[in-house]
Structure formats: C-alpha cells, structure tokens
C-alpha cells in the first residue's frame, strides 16, 4: 500500500518564484529552516482595523451604561 507519490517528500527546493522576484527584505531563521518576508500589512487590513477601532470606541461610549428601556 505504499504510494509511489511519497517519493516527492524528498524534494525540498525553495520556491523559485520567490527567489527570482523578491519584493522586500527577508528574515531567515537558519536552524529552523524558515524564511520570513518583511512585507507590509495590506492596506485593506489597515482599513478594517481602523474601522473596527472607530466602531469600538463608538460602541464603548454608547453602551457603557444600559439603556433604561432594555433592562
């Protein structure tokens, strides 16, 4: 029941497309065998984060105390 496809496990070539087109700097963790990009946080995520923070402040202020009618 051994699959021949398991032969692929021995392949560990680094990713070519990253090699050839690095956009930014990289950090390496040599003993762990891990590389890490120093990429920026996507703009869309900043938008999400800022929007949530604004909403959070609004909600916190508005609902700090219980609305009288609901309790």
């Amino acid at each position, binding site marked *: *029941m*051994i*699959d021949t*496809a*398991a*032969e*692929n*496990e*021995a*392949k*560990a*070539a*680094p*990713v070519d*497309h*990253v*090699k050839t087109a*690095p956009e*930014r*700097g*990289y*950090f*390496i*963790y*040599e*003993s*762990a*065998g*891990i*590389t*890490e*990009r*120093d*990429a*920026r*946080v*996507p703009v869309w*995520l900043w938008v*999400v*984060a800022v929007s*949530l*923070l604004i*909403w*959070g402040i609004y*909600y*916190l202020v508005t*609902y*700090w*105390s*219980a609305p009288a009618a*609901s*309790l």
Partner: protein
Amino acid sequence: MPDQEASATDLIDKDLVRAWLWWSIVWLTVFPLIGLLVSIKFHYPDFLGETSWLTFGRLRPVHVNGVIFGAFSTPVLGLLYYLVPRLCGRRMVKEHWGRPLLWGWNLFLIGGSISLLLGYNAGIEAGEFEWPFNLLRWIVLAAVGYQVLATIFTRKEAGFYVALWYTLAALVWTAMNLILGNVILPYVPMSGISNTALHGLYIHYVVGLWITPAGLALMYYFLPLAAKAPLYSHRLSLLGFWALAFFYPFVGTHHYLFSPIPYHNQTISIVTSMMLIIPVWAVIANLFGTARGRWGEIVGGSDADSYAAKFLLLATFFYLVGCFQGSTEALRRVQELTHFTDFVISHSHFTVFATFVLAAVGSMYYVWPRVTGRRLWSTRLASWHVWLTIAGTTIMLAGLAAQGFIQGSMLEYGANFVDSMVEMKPWWFTRTVAGATMDAGFVLMAINLVMTAREGIPFEALAESALLAVSEARPAAVGATWYGRPSGVFVIAGIAFFFLAVVVQGILPSILPQTYNPTVTAANTGQTIQVAELTLLERKGKRVYIREGCWYCHSQFVRPVTGENMRWGPVSQAGEYVYDQPQMLGTRRIGPDLLRVGRKYGDDWQAAHHWNPRDVVPDSIMPRFPWLYKNTDGNSAPELNEDGAALVAYIQKLGTSIGDWRETFSSTRLAAGAALQTGVMENSRDVLPRGKQVYMRRCVGCHGVKGDGNGAAARFLNPKPRDFTSGTFKFRSTGGDANSLPADEDLFITITHGLWGTAMPPWYDIDARDRLAVIRYIKIFSPRWNTEKPGTPIPVPDEPPVTMASLAQGKQQFETACAACHGMAGLGDGVPPGTFSDTWGNPLNPANFTLPAGMPGGAKLGHDGRHIFKTIVAGIGGTPMPPFAGAFTPAQIWDIVHYVQSLRVNAQIAALKQAGLNAAQQDAGFCSSSVPWLLAACNKVMLPIISFCSADGQTGTTANAATIQLADSRARIWASLSEAADHRQIEPQVLQVDQPKIPAIATFIIGR
C-alpha cells in the same frame, strides 16, 4: 544545506517526540469518539444510560476536557520538543524531563477522565477536574514552560520567530489561568456574580490563551515548512500577535451577556470580541499569503508534507469562519438569539476542533515521517482523512449553526421549549452522522501513522527547510525591537495584558456591592429583602446536581431578552447568586432553564421525572437517574434515596429567593382565561386529532392513555392525576352541584396556570389553540360531556373596596363556615390529617391559605379574588368542599375572599420581615476598615471607582431603604391578589395593620 539540516535534526530527541506523538494518536482517536457517543444520546437518550458513569452528564466533561487537553494539547506538547529546539538552535533545556512529563500528562488524562466518569466534578466548566489532577496538570505544564522559556532565553538562533512568541505566551498565560480556574474560582471567597465574571474569563482563556496561541504556534511553524515557502509577512505576524495579546484577555465576559455582571464589563467584552477580527484576519492573511503561489503543489501534492499543508490550510480557513462567528456572536442582538443554543456548539467545534485540532493533525503529518524515519505508509488513506474531515466538519458545523438560529428564533417567537428541542432531533441525528464521518477520518489517520511506523519505507532524511537563497535575506535578529524580543512578549503580553484584563473584567466587578450583597428586590413588592443561604440538605443537593452534570443542560440564568421573563419567570438578580460557588448560571440549554423552577412542580413530579423523564415528558431527552432511588424492586413507586431527596430539595429552592413571584407572574394570571374565545376551535375539523396529539405529548404520562389518571408516572404522584372518565373536575365557575361540569374557560385556566403544590404544571407556554384542542380531547373520556351541559356561569359582582369592616365581617363568616376544616387561622388544620378523602378515595387536606405559591397544601390556583369567590360559590368538585351558593350574599362572599386574602398578605408581610428588609447601610460600608490609612485610601480611591463603575450600570438590586414602606408592600400584595384591588380600593387603615418598624438588620456582609 544538508549539513545544516543534519545539525538541525541533531537538536531533537526524536524518540521523545515520537513517544508524545504515539499518545497523541491514542487521544486523537479516543476523545473525539466519546463525543460521538455523547451525540447519540441526543436522539437515543437511553443509549448507555443505565450506568451512572456513562450518562451524558459524566461523559460530556470527559469529551470536552479530553479534546482540549488530550487530543489537542498532547500533540502540541510533543511538537514543542520538535519546534522549540529547531527555532532556538539548541537542544531543549532539561530534555530528559520529557518522558516523565509525558507519563505525568497521561496520568492526568487517564486519572482525571476516570474521576469525571465516577462523578468527581468541580462544577466549573472547562475546570471540572478535582485538585489532584489540576495539580498534576499544572506541574507538567509549568515544567514544560520552564523548559521552553529556558531554551528560548538561552537560544543560539538570534531570531525570535513568531511561533515562539505564541508558544512562550501560551505557556505563561496558561500557568496563570489554571491558578485562576483551579484555585481562585473554587476556593477564594468570590462567589455569585464575581465567580461568574471570573469564570467567563477563565473559560475563554482556556480557548483564547492556550488553544489559540499554542495552535497558532504550530501553524506558523509548520505551514511554511510544509508549503516550502517563506512566511508571508513579519509585520503581519507582529500585528496578529500583539492585537491578540491585547484584546483576547478581555473577551471572556461575553459568555454571560445580559447577566447581572455590570453592563460596562459586558460592553468591554463585546468590543474586544469584535476587535479580535484584526488579529484573526492578520493571521489568515499571513498564512494564506504564505501558501500563495504554492496552492497547486499543495492541493495536487501527494506526499506527507502536502497533506500536512492541506490540513494546516484547512485549519486556517476554519479559523477564519469560526472566529468571525465568535466575534459576531458576542454582539448583543446576535447573542439574544443564539446563546444557549447549538450555535455556540458550532462555534466551539469550529475553533477547537476544526481549527486547532486539525492544525495539530497537520503538524503530525509533517513530523511523523521525520521522527520515525519512514515515509508515509499511504497517501490514499491521508486523502480519505482530508475529505472525511472536510465533509464531516462542514456538515456538522454548518448544521449546528443553522439549528442554533432555528431554535433561537422559535424561542423568541414564544415556542414551548421542549418543542424547540423536538425540532432539533433530525439535526442532531445529522450531527451524529457527521461526527462519525470525522471520527472515521481519525481512525484512518491512526491506522496510517501506526503502519507508517511499522511498515513505511525507511529513508535517509527528509528536507526540513524552506530557506531561500536571496540576497536580501538577513538574520531575523537584526532590527528586532522590544515587541519582537522574548522579554517583551513575556512581560508585556504574557503578564501585563493578562493582569490588566483580569483586574478590569474580573476584580473590579467583584468589588461592586451588588455582587456580594445578599439582597434582592422581591418580585411582587419591590421590597429589598435578604437572600437565605442553602440549607445543608440543599447544599448536598447542589453537589448531586453538579456530580450528575445537570448544569451542562440546564442554565440558571433568566435574561431580560427574547421573552425569557415571560417563559421562565423574573429576570436574574445578582443577589440571588451571592452564595453560589461554583456559580451555576450555565452556558447551554439542552433542557429548560432552572433558575425559577423551584415549586413549579411538586416533589412527587420531580421523583417521577428523575426516575424516567419520558414518563412525564415523552419528548424528553434527559437521562434516567435510577441510582437516586431506593426500594426499586417492588410494584410500588421507588422512593428517592438520600441523594435524590437532596437533589429535589435543591431544585425546589431554586428561584424562590425573590419572594412569592408566582402570584404575580403574568403568564399564569387567571385573568388570561377570561378573554378566552372558546368558540374559535368549535368548528375546526382537526381539533380532536390535534387535541390527541397534545394529550399524548403532554398529558399521557400522568393521566394515562385511557384518561383514567393511571399514567406511567401516576404511581409517584400525590395527589393523584385527575381521572377524566368521571367528568368530575375541581375548579369551576359554573353553578349547580359540586360535581357539575366545568366551562371550557375553567379547564383552560387550570391547564394554563397549573395546580400549585401538585404534579400538574402550568402550560402557558404552549399554543392557546393546543390548550383548547386538548380540552376537547379529554371530553371523550367521559360520557357526561355528551349527556350533560355545563352549568350557567356564576355571576361575580365587582369587587368592593377592601376595608377594615369587610375584613372583620369576612373573619366572622370564615370562622363560622370555613374554620371547621381550614382552621381558625386558615392553616388547613381544622381537622386532623387524613380525615378527608376525595371521590376516588385519595386522602386530602383542606387548603392552607397562608402558604406561598407552589407549596404543597396551599391554594392550588392562588389567591386571585375572583377565583376564590367562584370557588366558595361552586365548591370543589370531587372533594368535601361544598358549594356555598345561597349561604351568603355576594357582599358577604367578598368579605370572606378579602379575609382569606388577608391571611396570605399577612403571611407574606411576616415572611418579608423574617427575610430581613434591607437598611440604608448597604451603600455605606465598603470602606469600613478600622485602620485609618486604609479607610482614608479606600474612601478616596476605591469609592470613586465604585461610584464610577456603578453609575447607571445594571445592578441586581434597586434598594432604597428610605423609600421602602411596609404599607406599600402590603398594598402591592393586595393588588396582586385581586385584579380590582388597587391602591384606591384598599382602605388606608387596612394597609396600616400591624405595620411594624422596618428592622435595621445589618445586611452588609463582606468576606463571608
């Protein structure tokens, strides 16, 4: 590169990692399988049900704790011995501890699970183990924590990778959280709402500060390796970790929204729950970004690394869905609908199982070939594992979420609770099938990994690197700032944020007076009264309640939303939980809420119910509890043994601390019957089939299939269920002799209201048309309904004012006509017990008019003025109580009614005085230290904080002793007993009767 990999491999004790992972395979198979057994009980409640240690209440905590600490934590701990040395560039500190720790961990899991099955349960959700097992768990985790921290702080690798941030923080957080859950919650005198607030934090720290960071550590480490790609973004790693570390510690209070926990604490938990979208989406972007450009190789790959990546990416997807579900679930409107339902179970399985258990599984697929030195035995089995997991998980979790909305909507619409459970049964069956599918995948994985170790093809070495040879690469330590260093993670994230959240969300609420003052607002008077502690018997009953796991299915928490106060009774108040440690508010309702269940049913009904719930509620999925009985061999009804009697005593105590609220509970007010349009159903063709259906689901257990009062539960009951074959009913508003037929309105009132102190419960929560249909149906049992007509309705003149004169007249009439049976003081003691019996020969006693609602021997339909008027005129069918029509004028009957009511009013006033009316010192005494500097500091620092936190917050009591008037209470009670008797119709002099001075009872209790 090969040299580097070889040296990296030398850092690891493969035998140790392999040993941990062997046991991980065992626990990944066993504990989810127990969940499958538990799920079967939802549609086959008698499955494995005759043995106490295999009931739902015993198996459920084994499953939950087993998945968290066995199926998930065992591989995590084992994999730490793999990833930490490699990330630190050195062998693990005190590596030789690893094996003893493994055995210690297994001892904790095995011993702890057995103890739970035997009923040793601490009563704290996710903290059920008793102290020896908690201690063992803490020692193991602390030792691993020491190994990890010492290795990190002495590492040779300059960089400090994100997986280590999460690892370090998870171990520090959990070491502290286990102290919170295993020491503070059960032992420090912080009970009631304080206990609840802290428990909310604890339970979510188990998920958010152990499972999440430990799981993310695995995902961050193994995904780049399995995908053979660089991690997408260091900055996203920073954003994800620090946002999680800051927001997550605050969120736990969202488990108890709408509770008496201060409102602003609940709001903080909601906001921070939503803020968790930031770190979650940062993690998702980071991990999916890592796989960008590699999807083809991963999805199409058929080696162990590809399957590792598939599981890790599957976990990433489920993390996105599960966490978005969790964040939005914290919003008040969403939680109104979904809390206590299977939606919560969907969320917990999304996050714990589908995300982090699968992350551990993916990591094991990566590591197992490397520590066994053999290639994966079968990629075909691995493929089956993936697809069974996708199919089972998706069906189960989507189904659970959907059924949560369905049940929540049904309940919000006013459906009967048991009906909402019946609606869930097909879904639960599907859940079991889906769960079996998932478990089948685990079995295949176990076979595959075992066979890999035994039969897999040996190899020299597998690559363990995703390093890139790029010119821009530099050591990770370059440019690292405080937030990227171990000390920053340890001090700021691990300690400071944790304590900040515990203080704000756990400690500050506990210093608010309402969380420790044993006072509540009486539901029918507005009076602030003292709450009594449980008796010894009731305490024992609570221990049985915890031991049998009743609290997993029954909450004790009535929320002020979705009509719960109309379904269960008045909303929860902080004061009634003050003596509760551990608190029993609960997080799930598979059965009805029990906060207000005390005196809803008689003790006899409870005895029948625990013997076999389906005897009294055919649709019930509650297990039987035959081990709570004695004398079970004979033909007579088994009797509750010591444990059973204690449990019933505890249940009957629940919710009774807020005064005699049932007299004023609008859902059962007798006036509801007055507006009944009985003609609505007259011409309906399906009325009898519908009535039969209602009867067979609600009534047959007591009244029997033949309607003769000999249902399966009848042998437990006293008084016996009504025998419908004689056509004799107790309460009527119709003239004629005492056995004349009642009007439909009378039966409707009895069904809606229930008969207090007996096994007849109120059925206000089923459709009015169902109640009318069953009235039609029970008429088929007696031929009288075909040959006789109900008498004419008794005219009830408007109620005259309550005056001193009418009370005096009423007393005189009562002593003349009623006292012979009911006693001079209306205590039902005019004749010796056993003197009277009903038409069927069952012994009965005259009513005691002074008893509160639901007490056996009291007024079965309460003290409503019009009801008592009609009962005096018509008598009580089938009993020695004769009709007094013609014996008194209507005015005289009203006088008697007022006097009978006054007996209850006086008894309630006496009970209020006995309970203790709260005095003004409630708000004055926090800073009562005799130490001057402490007193001054308290007054200047703590009181403003308390004042600030209390401002407009949701408080459990609204006491203002200055405005409390006993006369006002008396007026309110009067008004509650008679629809017409409001303040204007009660003579002021009546309200001054026996008015005592309000006793200045020292109610301020701190540090009981």
